[in-house]
């Protein structure tokens, strides 16, 4: 049997794969002081991957390969844009951070690019095997990147915890997949979806769905499978933590939604309550734990757990209420796009702020606004956006979420909306605490005495891009709505 390969549909992956190889080769010929050229190449390559995506979006239509196991529809393209743009921002914020210490630079970019390639493959997968391999390539290199500060015991610990939980979740996920394959006789999502109605009463099917959810929840660090995340984020190099909190979290999260939506819609009575519980717990536990954090990276780690809970709300609500899942899907994607931008901005602020204050403790950031007003303003901007204050992008994410929940209707949905509302208030409190420290607290003499250092151009560019987009989406949300609308294509054309 022969298969047609559509090279245009694979072009983004091919560009990134070519960049990976080129980066490896280039790294061989560079002396240590010239290693930043690998970063330049990576950034250009990732941006180059966007070109065919934009072309395909303009052209429209769905491209399906290999018996429908690899599908490039608008939903997949939107996700690829999210993964490439956030990967681009993480690469930018890495440059000065990685250069400053004696890290292995070439290998760092190689591993980060490999992980980006994995998430690109994952977004097109409509088949258990491709999905599993894509997810594995997304997380595998990150086990090592989390431990990249080799001499630092905390970084070592971050790496080992992440690794053990990562392989455990893979094993659980695979066991669920093997049961699903055995029950339905197929690995393609469309074929699985077609076989589900005859199997609904099987306990083994419910069990395999639960295994899948647990496996994905570990990767997406949803409560109660989140306990590795704060430690790993704190110990990992900060750009890697930013990547973990956006790309790798989104990869696990999106993989779960793709499977539930395209392969298992026939058995939503099993997974809908499970997602409901995951969403409610993630929001509540994430926010309550964030209240107690003194370290800014840990605070962002818990906040990203809570934000993932918010992201899950529309989907869980619609599934529980039995209403239109496509609507919920687009709300979730809008939230994801906005979250990616503002969270990466917040991490870039953390990197810049840690350089300025020499510390990751919120108390040490007191009075940063007096020392460095621009950075202070940016801190306020991104944290207010995360809290959902208009006219920054975060408010629109929350608005879309609540709108979609209210559309879904039903008692359990309203309970979830109430939990989300209470949590938004709690979240505002700890985001505001950071802003208060930066602007209202008196700076320590030590901070004022520190010499003012110029920031690297790359980190300024990261901040500028994420700031521009955060403000632009907040004022002109139609831009984000486009992403949501386009992502609905999975409902009709996908698979």
């Amino acid at each position: 049997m022969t298969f047609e390969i559509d090279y245009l549909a694979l072009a983004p992956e091919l560009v990134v794969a070519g960049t990976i190889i080129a980066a490896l080769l280039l790294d061989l010929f560079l002396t240590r002081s010239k290693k930043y050229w690998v970063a330049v190449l990576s950034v250009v390559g990732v941006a180059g991957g966007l070109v065919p995506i934009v072309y395909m979006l303009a052209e429209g239509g769905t491209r399906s390969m290999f018996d429908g196991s690899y599908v490039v529809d608008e939903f997949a393209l939107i996700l690829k844009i999210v993964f490439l743009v956030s990967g681009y921002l993480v690469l930018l914020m890495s440059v000065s951070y990685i250069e400053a210490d004696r890290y292995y630079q070439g290998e760092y970019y190689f591993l980060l690019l490999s992980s980006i390639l994995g998430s690109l493959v994952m977004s097109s997968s409509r088949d258990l095997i491709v999905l599993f391999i894509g997810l594995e390539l997304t997380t595998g290199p990150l086990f090592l990147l989390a431990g990249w500060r080799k001499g630092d015991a905390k970084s070592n610990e971050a790496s080992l915890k992440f690794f053990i939980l990562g392989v455990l979740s893979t094993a659980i996920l695979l066991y669920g997949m093997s049961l699903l394959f055995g029950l339905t006789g197929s690995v393609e999502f469309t074929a699985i979806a077609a076989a589900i109605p005859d199997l609904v009463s099987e306990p083994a099917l419910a069990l395999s769905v639960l295994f899948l959810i647990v496996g994905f929840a570990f990767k997406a660090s949803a409560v109660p499978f989140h306990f590795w995340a704060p430690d790993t984020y704190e110990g990992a190099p900060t750009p890697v933590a930013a990547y973990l909190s956006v790309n790798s979290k989104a990869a696990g999260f999106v993989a779960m939604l793709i499977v539930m939506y395209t392969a298992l819609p026939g058995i939503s009575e099993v997974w809908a309550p499970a997602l409901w519980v995951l969403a409610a717990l993630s929001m509540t536990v994430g926010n309550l734990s964030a209240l107690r954090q003194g370290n800014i990276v840990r605070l962002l780690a818990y906040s990203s757990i809570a934000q993932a809970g918010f992201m899950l709300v529309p989907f869980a609500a619609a599934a529980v209420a039995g209403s239109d899942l496509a609507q919920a899907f687009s709300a979730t994607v809008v939230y994801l796009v906005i979250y990616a931008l503002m969270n990466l901005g917040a991490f870039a602020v953390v990197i810049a702020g840690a350089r300025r204050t020499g510390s990751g403790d919120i108390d040490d950031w007191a009075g940063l606004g007096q020392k460095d007003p621009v950075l202070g303003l940016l801190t306020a901007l991104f944290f207010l956006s995360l809290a959902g204050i208009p006219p920054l992008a975060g408010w629109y994410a929350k608005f879309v979420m609540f709108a979609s929940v209210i559309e879904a209707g039903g008692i359990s949905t309203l309970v979830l909306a109430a939990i989300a509302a209470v949590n938004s208030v709690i979240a505002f409190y700890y985001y505001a605490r950071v802003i208060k420290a930066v602007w209202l607290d008196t700076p320590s003499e030590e901070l004022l005495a520190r010499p003012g250092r110029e920031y690297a151009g790359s980190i300024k560019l990261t901040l500028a891009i994420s700031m521009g987009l955060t403000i632009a989406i907040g004022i002109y949300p139609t831009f984000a709505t486009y992403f949501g609308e386009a992502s609905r294509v999975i409902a009709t054309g996908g698979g």
Partner: protein
Amino acid sequence: MTVDAWIAEPVNWVFSIVAVVILFTAVRVVTSPNVVHAALYLVAALAGSAVMFLLLSAEFVALVLVLVYIGAVLVLFLFGIMITRAPTGFDEGLSNDRKLVSAAISLVLLGVLSWASLSAFGTDTVNTVGSPTATEILGDAILGRFVIPFEVVSFILLSALIGGITVARRDLTPLEEEERKAV
């Protein structure tokens, strides 16, 4: 199929014997007080699984399991154990003291999983004819229908290789680096 008919069949004797070996060695993997022994028990458990694959006519996978797992991965494990100088003698400190709770959890898990699969597949039988699955089919599938995951998996291996070397190697101290530059 009656129990008598099941027992009367020589294939099932082979299955039973190998299954007992696999289960015994698997239990020893997680209980052995000696790290090297645990790794060697895993070799036995995997070899048993390879026999099972042969019974199920998955000849090629059985060979891959022996070559890749027993031949390469387990050797890697033994290297890891030797290099980290993990206590190779008997050591009761390798397990924590949550044994009873953990055993209860895994027994419940076993019960639930077996109950689910018994109710789903009842007395279904495996449909293998004595001749093994042609390796040709596997090759066609891997390089045709599954060529994308096949290519992607090579990036996983590449990143394990390069990243693994970078992380595991001993860094030169600044002094040693100076010396190396001088030479």
